């Protein structure tokens, strides 16, 4: 066993931590308050090359291993979740299927610009009646000659309103359930493809999230992102674990940001003649928070290591997502308590972390779905 980060990983961690402290942290409050995509920060951040985090060096990426990627996801979320969601969407879900299945011309048009931040990508799963249950997807893709015709409406799409390109989940036949699903690339400017309503969210503000409408959108045959038709659910499996563990890493980013705020406050807030960090009840909160955060990180690194080693980690990834999220929710709650009434004031950051953390309850799988899944893995299918 070896629980240490490599020298490269340590170096990367320091580098990205510094970057986030310098560029992102000072903007976090403004991003939250304005609830607009921070284009200027995006441009500045894009120059540093992180958007190519997971992709090979030959195409301009950083070739980061999964552990390194988790370090990045945590740090960027620590800075600003609103910004992190947009960034991670470009790094992972919004570009993966183009990287995996796209033609060279498609990559030149979409992937490489996205890695440079010149294009913004997204992935669209959710619809008004399908979220946890992807087999209920009603967006359809029909073959017409050498084109696919896509019809439907997607909901809760991260980067949706500003996306230059979307990887869209659609079914060739709704009666096939999970066995009819496919991913298609749809680019901005394609007739019939348009953003709809923009959502006003509790947290993760600054990420623009909204509806995407597909009204007889025609894309060429090669825009089916997959080696075969109707294997979408299988391809999704290639990144599902990473997405779940990534969500856990984001949870740790939020938790760490809140924890640091709590620590600072406990050290300076005086009550009954002493700083409150002297009281055992407050100290125990830090002990509990630190314990569960440490546990979460171990789960994250363990799962990331399994992904790297190409070991099965469906179960571990699901556990990690759930555990880290629940930890984060506890931490943001405790920190608002440590802050007393100030935890309730928009003037300070704890309330932002409290709001931001709630997104984790659906992103990466609700805990009801995760428990259902774990139950199946351990006990078998319900009879």
């Amino acid at each position, binding site marked *: *066993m070896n*629980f240490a980060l490599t020298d490269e990983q340590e170096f990367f961690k320091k580098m990205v931590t510094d970057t986030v402290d310098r560029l992102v942290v000072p903007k976090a409050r403004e991003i939250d308050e304005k609830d607009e995509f921070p284009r200027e920060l995006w441009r500045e951040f894009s120059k540093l090359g992180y958007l190519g985090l997971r992709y090979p060096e030959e195409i301009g990426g950083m070739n980061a291993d999964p552990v390194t990627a988790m370090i990045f996801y945590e740090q960027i979320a620590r800075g600003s979740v609103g910004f992190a969601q947009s960034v991670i969407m470009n790094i992972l879900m919004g570009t993966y299927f183009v990287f995996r299945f796209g033609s060279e011309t498609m990559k030149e048009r979409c992937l490489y610009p996205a890695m440079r931040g010149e294009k913004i990508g997204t992935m669209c799963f959710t619809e008004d009646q399908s979220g946890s249950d992807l087999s209920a997807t009603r967006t359809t893709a029909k073959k017409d000659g050498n084109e696919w015709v896509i019809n439907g409406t997607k909901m809760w799409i991260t980067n949706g309103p500003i996306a230059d390109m979307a990887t869209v989940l659609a079914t060739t036949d709704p009666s096939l359930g999970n066995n009819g699903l496919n991913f298609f690339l749809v680019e901005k400017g394609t007739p019939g493809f348009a953003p709809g309503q923009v959502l006003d969210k509790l947290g993760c503000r600054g990420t623009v999230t909204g509806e995407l409408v597909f009204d007889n959108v025609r894309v060429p045959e090669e825009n089916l992102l997959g080696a075969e038709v109707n294997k979408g659910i299988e391809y999704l499996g290639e990144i599902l674990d990473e997405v779940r563990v990534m969500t856990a890493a984001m949870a740790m980013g939020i938790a760490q940001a809140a924890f640091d705020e709590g620590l600072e406050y406990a050290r300076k807030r005086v009550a009954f003649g002493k700083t409150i960090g002297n009281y055992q009840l407050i*100290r125990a909160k830090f002990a509990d928070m*630190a314990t569960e955060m*440490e546990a979460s990180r171990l789960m994250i690194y363990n799962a990331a290591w399994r992904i790297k080693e190409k070991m099965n980690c469906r179960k571990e990834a699901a556990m990690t997502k759930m555990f880290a999220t629940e930890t984060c929710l506890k931490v943001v709650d405790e920190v608002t308590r440590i802050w007393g009434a100030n935890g309730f004031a928009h003037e300070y950051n704890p309330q932002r972390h409290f709001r931001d953390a709630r997104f984790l309850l659906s992103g990466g799988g609700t805990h009801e779905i995760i428990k259902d899944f*774990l139950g199946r893995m351990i006990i078998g299918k*319900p009879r």
Partner: protein
Amino acid sequence: MDFALTDIQRDIQNAAREFAEKEFPNVARECDEKEEFPMELWKKACELGFVGVFIKEEYGGAGLGYTEAAILMEEFWRVDPGCGNLLLTSFGTEIIQQFGTEEQKKKYLGLIPSGKAIMGCGITEPNAGSDVFMASTTAVKDGDEYFINGSKTFITNGTIADVILVFCITDPNTEERFGKHSFIIVETDRRGFEATKIKGKMGIRASDTAELSFNDVRVPIKNLVGDAEGYGFKQVMHLFNLNRLLATAQAIGAAQGAFEKAVTHINKRIQFGKPIASFQGVQFMIAEMATKIEVGRNMLYKACWLIDKGIFDPKAISIAKLFAGEASIAVINDAVQLHGGYGYIAEYGVEHFYRDAKIVEIYEGTREIEKITIAREILGR
């Protein structure tokens, strides 16, 4: 990073599992009911090399690490915590190995893995538990002997040990509170030593626990652990770091044992026309239990890895024990719950875990002391 056990560690794990599954069930219920230490089982465990594996080869041990010791403990507790604590017959060797004189190491350490003797360690007193500085048993120098007076309580192996390391005040007048205490090795056949078994423990009833009294017990000066007085506190902390690790392994082992019993039961138990495993409410409990165990085990192995690298990080160790203890209690509580009425009956083999596991939140540092340790590392004193 590398989260895999080595091949040797896997072999040890399998051997421990095989031994525990084969041997423990024959005696566990009876030892629990009668509050008897499983003497024959302990001898067999020694013959197979399970006891004191961390003792160096030059002193008659296997020269393995604490990771291996933790794996053994985990596997033993998975089957039966009371019997599993036979591994604690090496309790105290950690101190001699780290701080003892060469003569002491040669004299005492080899006795333990070979099953020639049982060791114990007397720290707690009626008025000194979490606050070890309160320990008031005295060792007063008289010529070339110490004479020891005082009493100890809750001492593991108290009535079966051949040798006990006793935490005594050797310098009552020092201003330096860390320099007040020392460990003295006491052979239990010495005059003035008396051990009285404490009966009626809630769990780990096969593990021996006693009150000790020292009434002018005389031992030679060379029985002082190490070369100098005043290092008792440092030595206690070393022991706690290691035994907190083993307690973490105990917590995970017990949780795993109860969890497996629950999974078996819910697949067999039919209610409302279906195995209760098919109900979502039950599946959710199983999902949460499995998650807690998985998280706890990661914490355990990280702490093991640190210790085997020679890094004694009290925060990491306390974090592991705090988490694993709470997780274990929660998992076992659910395992009993999933057994319904059967969970409450000894015959079905799950209720004892409920009684056994609680000790992990008490000994080797209560849950509250772990929190104090962790918070101190974060917030300062």
